[in-house]
């Protein structure tokens, strides 16, 4: 296939914190010598916002995308126009992760309405006859771990038919009592969410108990704010009619790419990741019990 271009980032997990030095190599390889008009490397960081069709109209959502916000963007010329010898050429690079002005390096985040993404792009300009070569590569930015010890904020909860909010006919619900606690409501994102849940009693046989992780994204735009809650992941913590009054562990690892620490800026917010438990009773399609 002739010439190929590749970017190799030094860290295997591609995770960097603000202020760190990002280093790696650009690899040019080909059987024949490569004539080129210069090799450029671009670092780009953007926040893409998308309006939810729920809060504005479908068409508006389609057309009225909010303009992406640029966090970082810089280009350097790595190699002056010339020729690469046949074989493999590695061109090392490194640059510090700094932003200009009062901009902040937000954490990489892939959500539904908010997307924060950092890419490295390498372009090889070539003469008219040959197409330019481009290679992009994502790297991940994590904010530095918080200083200071986080004080855990445990919370106990009880779920009964009465505590359910979105029920139409409360009378049809079977009786049950579920108690439990979460070890902390504010969590360190790298640590799993933990807790315990005890089914004290339940009239109906339990089919499944699930833990749902929900995110709340808020986008600001000309017409005001759009706030949406969407599911990130759903994890079953009990399958079948569990033993009564025996504690079942609550445990969830946060999927790193799709969650981020709570973030508030002028233009957008990514809200508190909120877990919920659902119990599904055996008889009905399942009235939801929410915490």
């Amino acid at each position, binding site marked *: 296939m002739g010439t190929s271009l590749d970017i190799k980032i030094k*860290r*295997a*997990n*591609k995770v960097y914190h603000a202020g760190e030095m990002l280093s790696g190599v650009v690899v040019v390889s080909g059987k024949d010598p490569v004539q080129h008009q210069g090799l450029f490397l671009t670092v780009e960081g953007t926040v893409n916002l998308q309006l939810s069709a729920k809060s504005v109209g479908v068409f508006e959502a389609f057309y009225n995308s909010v303009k992406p916000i640029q966090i970082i963007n810089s280009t350097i010329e790595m190699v002056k126009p010339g020729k690469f010898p046949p074989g493999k050429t590695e061109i090392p690079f490194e640059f510090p992760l700094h932003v200009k002005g009062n901009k902040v390096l937000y954490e990489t985040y*892939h959500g539904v309405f908010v997307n924060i*993404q950092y*890419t490295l792009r390498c372009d090889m300009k070539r003469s008219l006859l040959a197409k330019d070569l481009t290679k*992009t*590569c*994502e790297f991940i930015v994590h904010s530095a771990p918080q200083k200071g010890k986080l004080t855990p904020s445990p919370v106990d909860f009880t779920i009964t038919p009465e505590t359910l909010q979105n029920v139409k006919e409360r009378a049809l619900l079977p009786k049950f009592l579920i108690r439990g606690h979460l070890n902390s409501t504010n969590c360190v994102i790298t640590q799993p969410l933990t807790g315990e849940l005890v089914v004290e009693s339940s009239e109906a*046989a*339990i089919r499944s*108990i699930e833990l749902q992780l929900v995110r709340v994204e808020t986008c600001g735009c000309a017409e005001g704010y759009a706030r949406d809650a969407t599911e990130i*992941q*759903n*994890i*079953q*913590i*009990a*399958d*079948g*009619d*569990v*033993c009564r009054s*025996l*504690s*079942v*562990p609550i*445990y*969830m*690892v946060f*999927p*790193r*790419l799709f969650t981020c620490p709570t973030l508030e800026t002028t233009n957008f917010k990514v809200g508190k990741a909120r877990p919920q438990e659902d119990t599904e009773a055996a008889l009905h399609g399942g009235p939801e019990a929410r915490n």
Partner: protein
Amino acid sequence: MAPADGAAWALREGACPSQSWRRGRCSLGSAGGSLPLTIMAPTDGAAWALRSGACPSQSWRRRAARRGLCGRATAPHNHGGRGRAGPGRELRTGGPRRRGHVTGKMAVFPWHSRHRNYKAEFASCRLEAVPLEFGDYHPLKPITVTESKTKKVSRKGSTSSTSSSSSSSVVDPLSSVLDGTDPLSMFAATADPAATAAATDSSRKKREREDNSIIGSDFEPWASKRGEILARYTTTEKLSINLFMGSEKGKAGTATSAMSEKVRTRLEELDDFEEGSQKELLNLTQQDYVNRIEELNQSLKDAWASDQKVKALKIVIQCSKLLSDTSVIQFYPSKFVLITDILDTFGKLVYERIFSMCVDNRSVLPDHFSPENVNDTAKETCLNWFFKIASIRELIPRFYVEASILKCNKFLSKTGISECLPRLTCMIRGIGDPLVSVYARAYLCRVGMEVAPHLKESLNKNFFDFLLTFKQIHGDTVQNQLVVQGVELPSYLPLYSPAMDWIFQCISYHAPETLLTEMMERCKKLGNNALLLNSVMSAFRAEFIATRSMDFIGMIKECDESGFPKHLLFRSLGLNLALADPPESDRLQILNEAWKVITKLKNPQDYVNCAEVWVEYTCKHFTKREVSTVLADVIKHMTPDRAFEDSYPQLQSIIKKVIAHFHDFSVLFSVEKFLPFLDMFQKESVRVEVCKCIMEVFIKHQQEPTKDPVILNALLHVCKTMHDSVNALTLEDEKRMLAYLINGFIKMVSFGRDFEQQLSFYVEARSMFCNLEPVLVQLIHSVNRLAMETRKVMKGNHSRKTAAFVRACVAYCFITIPSLVGIFARLNLYLHSGQVALANQCLSQADAFFKAAISLIPEVPKMINIDGKMRPSESFLLEFLCNFFSTLLIVPDHPEHGVLSLVRELLGVIQDYTWEDNSDDKVRIYTCVLHLLSAMSQETYLYHVDKVDSNDSLYGGDSKFLAENNKLCETVMAQILEHLKTLAKDEALKRQSSLGLSFFNSILAHGDLRNNRLNQLSVNLWHLAQRHGCADTRTMVKTLEYIKKRSRQPDMGHLTELALRLPLQTRT
């Protein structure tokens, strides 16, 4: 070749003390340089005699024949037994048939055999025996430890034995290398605690510490349980597999970024949904199901090999999802086994992949690596696996897949596994179905034991968690499920056993007594604890159970009738008691209590499963009375409705246990119910199997020959059963096995001095075992042996009675041999039996044997089947004939037939036999005949049979006899020379040369070279051997040297002249 018992032994005894002869031959070999030996059978006992006779010697003494033809007069006396000869008489063939054929040819050279004085030759060739002083050096003398040294060693108190050569002046090369200490005792010395304490202390401590945590060989591995579970938990109901998996089209190209890869897989998943890849396979039989799972296992491997990691993970997830399905619950344990196999495969693949990523080009990770040595890429990959698995939505797949790659935690951190195990243990609490959860625990324990056996706490935690959820088994949800599936509680509860047994086994492995006691107490406290009790009994140490057997019996009795089947409980208890002994005082009570319950079992299957186990306990600790009672009880239970037909394996195992404990067969057969028990095996194949077992044990344990009528009767019956199972379809191996067993029995039967009885036993045995050739062969050997035994008892002088008995023995052999199929077996047995007959002075019978052998030779086929391969038979025939000649030397001529009638007859047969076109075997045989005839023309033969006058004393060197003899020689020589002539063609020149030389050697050894013509012939042969440059110069030189050496001996002067006429061809 039949083993050299009876006959060969007899001949040797009849000839001369074998020991001294062997020495004589040995010395000749070293003195002779090139020994002019022709091919002879190298292995046979009788062949050596003639060969030693063929050796050159230095002198001969001419002695005037003092006796005339008086030998003829003595003959009738010797042949006195002829009047009442054995059955062989009728079969005698009349006279030499082909006499004219051989003698018809023109004799070119006359034969003059050299006269030999065997005694003098023997004396001159024999090495002088020098008495060995104590302490003299001799290479074959064993290395001895001198006393003084031993004393010194023992005073030191060390265990090492410093062995060194004795006080000889020459040091033994082997022991000198060792510098006085052999390496084994050196090890023994270093193993001395005092010596090694300092050096290996630390390493040993470390090893001891590890000992606790590492699984030893005494831990029964999962692999051995696996098959058992698969065989036990089966179903005839239809199964279904519900797979929800993409038909992967193979991921195209490399992903450009992490993001786009994600997008693509998501899209692919969407595609899969649309294509309806949700496959539900319904109505599978169990075998189909197993096959499907095996296919999945294979496709997992394929996917992995083709780098489709996502697909592999999907397969594993879908498979483990099957474990949450409890429809067709009887099959669940087997399903668990099948699916965890896949999980194991997956776990291994992931581990190996990550491990291989740690290997950079320089170094390989050691087996006990620490996480710091693992590079970032490997760690990242490993983390990715864990993240991916953590986001699996459903609980059961998430648990199983994470447990399967538990070992990979080693790459991430040192404490990874110890943190993971308790978490996973807790996670199982979320599994509602008690059966599913107990198997999940079993899997976790299994992985835990494999990866981190030292982490006992989580094992215990599993156990206690299980006890907490124990009440669920009797809860409504489970009961409803059972009603739906139509499964009874007594068949539902045993489904737990494999998993629980495994958990209990893991915990109790090397566990302290206190823990076991605590576990037992906690089990006791729960109601309906039969299930727990059973697992305790099957998993805990047998000693632990055995000492508390009475407690257990009490507990078993208290158990609820409707729950876990009691016969299984008693079975488990019985298994323990078979391994470990309960206290002496309780033994009888235990048996009584247990058997009381067992005998009440209604279902014959349940009953026999239980009884099978308890028989061992009974055999171990009680006498034949109790065993007989137990067997009687089994018979009583199994006979109605022919229930035994369904439980042959168990009944077989009962028999095996009984015979394993009763080595004394007279006791065994006096167990009243033993033989009636055998009658229950009515299916032939099983019956034969049982008989084989009995015979194997008999052969193994019976030390002394027996004549106990009880044993004989019973075992004859057993052997008859085995024999009667042989039919046209029986495999060769099977026949061989049966024959081996029957032979083992026959060899063990001895009536002592009651030879008549013994013979009638053999007669009976022959009629019983006529279909197995090796048995018949054995019987013939046994009878021959019996005849020789009789001779030994009578010290060679048979009385009227013993003579008749011996003839009866001979007759037995004569009748039996023709029923054999193997031609060489027949030939050799004829020969051996003939020798035995000769040794017992049954001359006409011996004649009959030899004649039978001779008349059989033309039937020898060109090719014979040896171990399933076709081989040319000529070499065997040659071997046999050489052997035969050795015997013929001493066979006296029949007074009514011509001189040397047997030899002539044999020559005729050899002449007519169709030999291989390109072989010289016929000539080789003729050369041997020449040797035989030379030996026959001697005044006194090389060996004799005691009390049988051979031709030397019969004819007393009569000139007519010698003339006949020489005439035969001439004919034979003519044949040889003729053959040599036909070899003049190009491709045969080499053969001609070597045959010529061998003939030359024969003449040298046996011929009288003072005869001019013979002398001339030998010179011609010498030239012939060298003519075409085919001769081996070294051999020629050696031969010439030998002749010159011989010529220096007295009376051998004529050889000097001969040597001068033998030129050596120069190599040009």
